[in-house]
């Protein structure tokens, strides 16, 4: 249950949230398993969903911490959250508006 990095091959532009740059506007495609959370992984996924990280939801990357760009801050449904890279890597996203480059 770990090999599927991108569950949905149709989304060519899909990426994991932790790979996205600051200022990007993104749409959630789905949640991926994360082995770092071990047996808690399912619970972490549920909590992410409860906080609004559901397929279709739009979010924006607003910043990164100093050391290793960790944690990152995102805004979803008008609420800002701080996520570590480990959590962000669970969230599969696609870019919504391309504002120059990439």
């Amino acid at each position, binding site marked *: 249950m770990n090999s599927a990095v991108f569950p949905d091959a149709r989304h060519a532009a899909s990426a994991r949230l932790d790979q996205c740059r600051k200022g990007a506007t993104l749409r959630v495609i789905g949640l991926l398993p994360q082995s*770092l*959370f*071990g*047996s*808690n992984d399912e*619970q*972490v996924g*549920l*909590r*992410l*969903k*409860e*906080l*609004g990280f*559901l*397929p279709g939801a739009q979010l924006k990357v*607003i*910043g*990164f*911490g*100093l*050391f*290793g760009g*960790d*944690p990152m*801050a995102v*805004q979803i*449904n*008008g*609420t*800002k*959250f*701080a*996520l*570590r890279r*480990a*959590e962000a890597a669970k969230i599969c996203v696609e870019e919504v508006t391309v504002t120059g480059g990439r």
Partner: protein
Amino acid sequence: MVGSRLNQTAASIDSGNAPLRFAMIGNPNCGKTSLFNCLTGARAKVANYPGVTVERRSGMISGLANNAELLDLPGTYSLFVTSPDEQVARDFILGNIQGEARPDLLIAVVDATNLRLGLRLVMELRSLNRPLILALNQMDAARKRGITIDTAGLSQDMGIPVIETVAVNSQGVDALKHELDQYTHHQAGDTQRLTLSDRQESVEAIYDKIESLVRAHVTQPANMPRWQDRLDQVVMHPVLGLMVLFSILLVVFQAVFAWATPIADSMDAGFGVLGGLLTQILPAGILREFLVNGIIAGVGGVIVFLPQIILLFLFILLLEDSGYLTRAAFLLDRPMRGLGLSGRSFIPLLSSFACAVPGVMATRTISDPRERFITIMVAPLMTCSARLPVYALIISAFIPRQTVAGIFNLQGLTLFGLYFAGVVSAALVAWVMRRRQTREEFPLLLELPSYRWPMAYHVYIGLRERVWIFMRRVGTIILSLSIILWFLATYPGAPAEATRPAIEYSFAGMLGSWMEPLFAPLGFNWQMCIALIPAMGAREVAVSALATVYAVAGGELALGSALHSSWSLPVAFAYLAWFVYAPQCISTIAVVKRETNSLKSTALFTVYLFGLAYLAAWVTYQISALLIH
């Protein structure tokens, strides 16, 4: 499926004059506590839940036809919990806490500017089929952002009353009270427990419903106010943000020491005058001795630190209410993770600067048990406000009031250094305890709430609560310890042919001389040893204990000069170092015992801190003695 443990007798007793019980539940940062303060006014009571040390804030709601008690539950996102404090909220609602009846009515508080997240919890609560009122809080902020909500329609579609509230404005609060007045009876069979089986609806299905509710009844512009985002670009900037954070902390500590001094000095002078007056009026004798050297020197010596403690709590409350603290947690998460902690441990640790007891209790918001354990272990290394009197006394006696680099005063810098020593030691201890074993990671998932202006009334209530707790300590523990100490220092009196000061013949003198050999390597004299004993009850009593053993009644200045003439500088430094580490104060040890629920951990906690204190004081004494001579 309904729980089987019905308890009809308790229910029938309850239905008499017992007050109705309402409970407030909502997301963290939804303004629940401000609303709670408005509903209960001055009458909030802070206690612990039976068996668990989470603060239980309750109060009677004023202006209702029936007596009604309101409870403020810990903030939670979901009934499917991930942290110990969310567990308390859940257990309380379901009636799973021994000795706490289930509430008659739930008031779900939802931040109107953060509707979806709040409504999701309300949907869960609604499925419990309990009386439920929805309070749409922060309506003023929502209107300012151009959000309009059709509350009547929302209420009809959700099947529960919906009230708009603004915590600063009594209108919404009155409407809420009016709605509460409709509930006059206890629910039948109220003591039975609820059971919450697995999720009946998927998260997706709940959000679909919320989406259609929002589409039907809410219009909201897409963007947050721009100043919020601009502020975040600075405050959460990796480099600028850290600079802002350190500047804020420096200002806080500078203010606590420099701004509070004039007030403290005038209070101190007041106690000096009072002592002098009593000395003149009363005839010489045991009563005068008792009042001047026992009560005024003891209690007065501690009360003068009230301005500093108020200032410190004021800053913490302001930073918390404005929404800034979680930004600090965001910035510090990565560095703290290297120590086995996380951004989540930042807030308990910051509270520990005021007092380790609420700090240790606040660790309940940490889901990772290992991280929670480490946070508890290092929380007392954060300099609590009870240490401030001791530091302040010794600093003002030994460190000259000098201006350094134009703006800083040397005393303030020394104080900052002591706080800093505590923080660095906490980092080292956490790092040692971290133990890199292969274990599961826990998520951070921290909400960064919108900035808002702290509400004066809410800050006032919070501050008054803390002042009250401090004054209660002064009136109980500190007063009684002062009396006991005065007694020990006065009896038995010196024999007629005595050549040395009378106190050396007293019980206190004997006690001190027994302890002295143990502390001699640290340079402590017997007076200092004695002061350590009552400081176990409350650290700040060390000040009044010193005042008593040195028989000084003229206030802090007089005590300072007495210390200055009898301690050398290395001794003063060693005493400060002892207080940075020592797990003085029984209440901290007790709360660690309750929170870890383990004798072994508590023993580890006590022994390691005393060991560290001894070592640090010894090293400080030896090194500074070498440097000075």
